[in-house]
């Protein structure tokens, strides 16, 4: 069982490496969106500092979301998904592997980059730490929940944009607790409560989401 | 019994007329429009289905006639 998950992760990571663009560009999308805001809003530091948690989290959310359509689409188009569905093991396990792989190349880089970008917004050190921590806890939830949307819109034409419609409402709690944790730190309240709730969401997202995802994939293949 | 003294007062709603009537109007409008649209959709659907069914019946009739001629009027 573990070996299966490892095989899936290995394959997906190798594909991502091979495509390169995937890893580099999802990250750069994050960077660019975050850098766009000061351009659109104006340069006052006070205002920027107050926007920072929200902007960084929204950007992380959008960056994750942008890489979602490809989560299953390539496998679907070239017939690999049928092979996976016909594998003897439960499809949900394979999905779990793919979710982990997705996080490794779409979520993790954002976590690593967040402190650097936070500096652009003049965030204090403790806020930077909480920002990074909140992203570390929250991004797996984004990958897990996103997988449901990706599976539901699979093979549906216009799926890419429909996907965001389905997934964004589901992302909102993650966004609120994530940005809330940083905000709470900035305003001096503790981030504890937000972070635990975020952790609960992440656990749910990673371990509960593969089941509806697998069901949706089977529907898509019918 | 009735709370209002005049129609004008009723319509003005204590300076909140546009808001109150705007709410009521849109709500009633949409709640009337929805069943109307449904009824229209339904009658169109029925007309379309009737047309389809007639066309199919005609097609089938022809097909059956063709079968028979080929089968030399064998039983049925």
């Amino acid at each position: 069982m573990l070996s299966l998950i490892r095989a899936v992760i290995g394959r997906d990571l190798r594909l991502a490496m091979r495509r390169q663009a995937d890893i580099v560009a999802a990250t750069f999308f994050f960077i660019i969106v975050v850098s766009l805001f000061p351009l659109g809003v104006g340069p006052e530091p006070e205002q920027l500092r107050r926007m920072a948690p929200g902007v960084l989290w929204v950007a992380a959310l959008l960056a994750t979301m942008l890489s979602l359509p490809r989560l299953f689409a390539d496998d679907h188009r070239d017939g690999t998904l049928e092979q996976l569905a016909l594998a003897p093991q439960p499809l949900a396990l394979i999905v779990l592997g793919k979710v982990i792989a997705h996080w490794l190349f779409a979520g993790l880089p954002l976590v690593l980059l967040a402190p650097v970008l936070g500096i652009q917004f003049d965030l204090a050190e403790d806020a930077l730490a909480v920002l990074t921590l909140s992203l570390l806890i929250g991004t797996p939830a984004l990958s897990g929940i996103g997988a449901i949307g990706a599976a539901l819109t699979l093979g549906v034409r216009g799926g890419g944009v429909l996907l965001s419609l389905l997934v964004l409402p589901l992302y909102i709690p993650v966004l609120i607790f994530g940005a809330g944790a940083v905000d709470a730190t900035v305003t001096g309240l503790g981030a504890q409560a937000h972070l635990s709730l975020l952790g609960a969401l992440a656990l749910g997202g990673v371990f509960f989401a593969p089941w509806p995802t697998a069901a949706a994939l089977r529907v898509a293949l019918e | 019994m009735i709370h209002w003294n005049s129609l004008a007062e009723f319509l003005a709603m204590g300076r909140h007329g546009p808001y109150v009537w705007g709410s009521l109007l849109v709500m009633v409008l949409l709640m009337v429009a929805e069943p109307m649209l449904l009824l229209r959709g339904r009658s169109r659907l029925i007309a379309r289905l009737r047309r389809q069914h007639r066309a199919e019946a005609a097609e089938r009739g022809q097909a059956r006639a063709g079968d028979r001629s080929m089968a030399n009027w064998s039983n049925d």
Partner: protein
Amino acid sequence: MSNRLINWFRYASPQSFYPLAGRMIPWFWGLAAIFGVAGLGIGFLLAPSDAQQGEGYRIIFLHVPASWMSMFIYLVMAFWAATGLAFNTRLSGMMASALAPTGALFAFLSLWTGALWGKPMWGTWWVWDARLTSELILLFLYIGFIALQAAIDDPRRADRAGAILALVGVVNIPIIYFSVQWWNTLHQGASVSLTKAPSMAAMMLWGMLLCALACWMYSIAVALMRVRVIMLERERHTDWVRALLRGKE
């Protein structure tokens, strides 16, 4: 016991549900009209004005029923979706798709009436309050459901995909509601807060309840009408639809 079960399944088949629904619709329309006229009559003609909000508060007779219905319909929709997934009955999927547009309509009406209420009361059309935000997201969930079903043209697939989405959404709604509430209260006090109507006069309460009942009946009637259309469309090749349409000529 088993008898009742069989009855249930008989009505769960489109063929027998269709005429049954047809017979029930006029009754629900009638009830909706009666409750509506009574509720609006009490609310707009008889009820006294509110001490704090003056006459503007009368939007409550529209706003609260619409808000309630929008949330309740989502629950019912998710219920049908779940039964559809579990028992693979055709009727369930049809009911879920029939309810969604009405639910979306009420969600929109809740936003609309709320916004029109907010302008005179709070001085702004919109604030990012927990209830308002979750209502907005509820509208998005409805639209997502409708868009997903519209994008899949095999009805069986559309039903199942929609059902999965509805179920995931129903888990999410309480999470959203509480998360938004947290978000709001943990910030420094919001500049405006939802002023709850103080202990309501009995008259107001009655008006509101009657209006809510009217919306309830309306929803049932419209959902039944829509499910009948969906049945005709989906079952157009079955003998009973053919017979039905022929009979009507």
